[in-house]
Structures are given as structure tokens and as C-alpha cells.
């Protein structure tokens, strides 16, 4: 790579490390696949989430038994309240019950994945494999809602406003998971690449203090917005398919 380069006395792009590293080769039915940085970071994020939620659950029920409020129980109640509000405004009371678990899980996972960049992990959501899977799960859920609640109107909807639009309607269905996954992936990868370039290519005095602000913007702010947008889009699409109650 030719940015800067040794001849200019500047660090080369090799020092900017944002690639997915292949750590251990694994034999998977005859083909060699690798355990990558993404897997390791996903496991770390999920483990952290499990520990946190188990702790909060324990603290919540303990506070419930003793009949008093603690910090942990207040956090749990506020979080559940916000989540319920968020889902109920789009789906209504009846629909919210079905989808609130999925939205909560996906919200926590994406948010913690995005924010993990601040701890020096490579965010799992900066790998297209992760975001595509998340978007595909949402896509299956959206299409299931469409088939379940619209039945034959769904097939009829493909030929509207007139039959010539059929290919375009099919493309627009399949562009949903593509755009959802690419949006999350592109945002987080962009932040990761910029942070890696900043760390890898600037002299040491530029790394004092300034990266903190950049981390707050790229990891926390951008990550939170993208998490919100992903969940919001899932909820909105499902509500769109279910119709107004």
C-alpha cells in the first residue's frame, strides 16, 4: 500500500490494523475455515452480555423479594419500560407482546457489539457475516408477518399497481435485507477503519486525548444511532405488514 510509505518516513498502512485476522484453522466437512477475530469478539460480547443480564436478573429479583428499589432494579425497570414504549408505539399493545423479546435481544446484541470497539475489540458488526445474518433473521420475520397477516393479498400485492411491476416488487422485497445489513455494516466498518487509520498513521502526540472524542462519536454515538435504526426499521416493516390495528 502506498499511502505515506517508508520513503517519506511515515508509518505505512500495514500498521493500520482493522483487518479480520484468521486465528485457528478448523476442518469443516473437508474445507478449511478459520476461527477469526469476529468469532472471538462475538463470544466475548455474548459472554459479557450473559454475565450482565444474569447479574441484573439476580439483583432485580433480590430487590423484588426485599420490596425495595436498588440501582440495578431501577435500571432493569427503566430499560424494559423504554423497550415496551418503543415497540408499542409502532405495533400496538397486542403485537408488541410477540416481538418485544426479539427486538430486546437484537437491540442489546447490536448495541454491545458496536460499543465493544471502545474496549479495543474489533466490533463483530464490522463483519458482513454478522450483519447479513441479523438482517436475514429480521427479513424472515417480516416476510412471515406478511404471509401470516395478508395471506393471498401478499401475492396480489406483488402485481400492483399492474402486472408489469412484478420484477420490481420482487427486487424491492429482497433489497430490504441487503440495505439493512449494509447500512449497519458500512457505518460500523467506516468507524473502525477511521479509528485504525488514526491510531496507525499519526505520530504519538496526536494520540493523546483526541481519540477519546473520536471513540465517543464513532463507537458510542454512531453505534447507538445504528442500533436504534436497525430495531426501528424491523419494527416499522413488521408493523407495515401487519396493518394498522
Amino acid at each position: 500500500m502506498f499511502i505515506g510509505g517508508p520513503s517519506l518516513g511515515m508509518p505505512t498502512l500495514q500498521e493500520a490494523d482493522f483487518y479480520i485476522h484468521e486465528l485457528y484453522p478448523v476442518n469443516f466437512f473437508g474445507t478449511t475455515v478459520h476461527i477469526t477475530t469476529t468469532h472471538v469478539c462475538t463470544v466475548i460480547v455474548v459472554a459479557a452480555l450473559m454475565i450482565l443480564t444474569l447479574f441484573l436478573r439476580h439483583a432485580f429479583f433480590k430487590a423484588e423479594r426485599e420490596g425495595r428499589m436498588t440501582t440495578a432494579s431501577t435500571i432493569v425497570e427503566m430499560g424494559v419500560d423504554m423497550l415496551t414504549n418503543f415497540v408499542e408505539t409502532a405495533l400496538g399493545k397486542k403485537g408488541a407482546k410477540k416481538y418485544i423479546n426479539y427486538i430486546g435481544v437484537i437491540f442489546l446484541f447490536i448495541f454491545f457489539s458496536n460499543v465493544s470497539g471502545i474496549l479495543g475489540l474489533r466490533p463483530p458488526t464490522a463483519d458482513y457475516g454478522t450483519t447479513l445474518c441479523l438482517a436475514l433473521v429480521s427479513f424472515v420475520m417480516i416476510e412471515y408477518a406478511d404471509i401470516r397477516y395478508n395471506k393471498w393479498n401478499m401475492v396480489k400485492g406483488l402485481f400492483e399497481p399492474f402486472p408489469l411491476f412484478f420484477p420490481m416488487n420482487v427486487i424491492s422485497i429482497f433489497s430490504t435485507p441487503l440495505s439493512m445489513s449494509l447500512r449497519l455494516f458500512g457505518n460500523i466498518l467506516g468507524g473502525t477503519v477511521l479509528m485504525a487509520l488514526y491510531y496507525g498513521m499519526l505520530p504519538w502526540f496526536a494520540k493523546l486525548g483526541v481519540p477519546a472524542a473520536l471513540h465517543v462519536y464513532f463507537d458510542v454515538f454512531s453505534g447507538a444511532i445504528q442500533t436504534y435504526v436497525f430495531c426501528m426499521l424491523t419494527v416499522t416493516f413488521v408493523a407495515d405488514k401487519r396493518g394498522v390495528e
Partner: protein
Amino acid sequence: MGNGNFDGNDLVHAFSALGAGIAVCSGIGTGIGQGNAAGLGAQAVGRNPGARGTIMSTMLLGQAVAETTGLYGLVVALLLMFVKPFDN
């Protein structure tokens, strides 16, 4: 490198970098669109401060959708720069 001789691969790298630069120009449209949405959102809040929450979420949703095209450009640029699909 450095002795004045170029081969085909250097040319490919140079044009890949140029293409990456051109690809991220898609950010112009995204910037205009998002700024427009934010400006109109601020106007709407000014007119009807009570509906702040709804306006905020609608605006964010619209901006996120508008951002997609810019991100396609970013992804193409990153592919050109770091995955180097035209290398031989």
C-alpha cells in the same frame, strides 16, 4: 518501486485509489439529503415542540434510509482500497 519503472500492477493500484476517491463522492448526495431532513426536522420541532419525540424518530429513520446510498459508495471505496479485487 522508486526506480522509475512501472508495471501493470502499479497502474491498477493507482486507478483503484482514484476510483475509491470517486466512489466516496456519493457522500455528497447523502450529506445534502440528511442536512435537508435535519433542517426540516428542526423547523417541525419549532412549530410543534410537543411532538418532539415523534419528529425525532421519523427524522432519524429518514436519514438512515438516505444514508444507504452514501454507504454503498463507502463500501465500494473500501473494497477498492483494501480488498483490491483487480490485483493480479
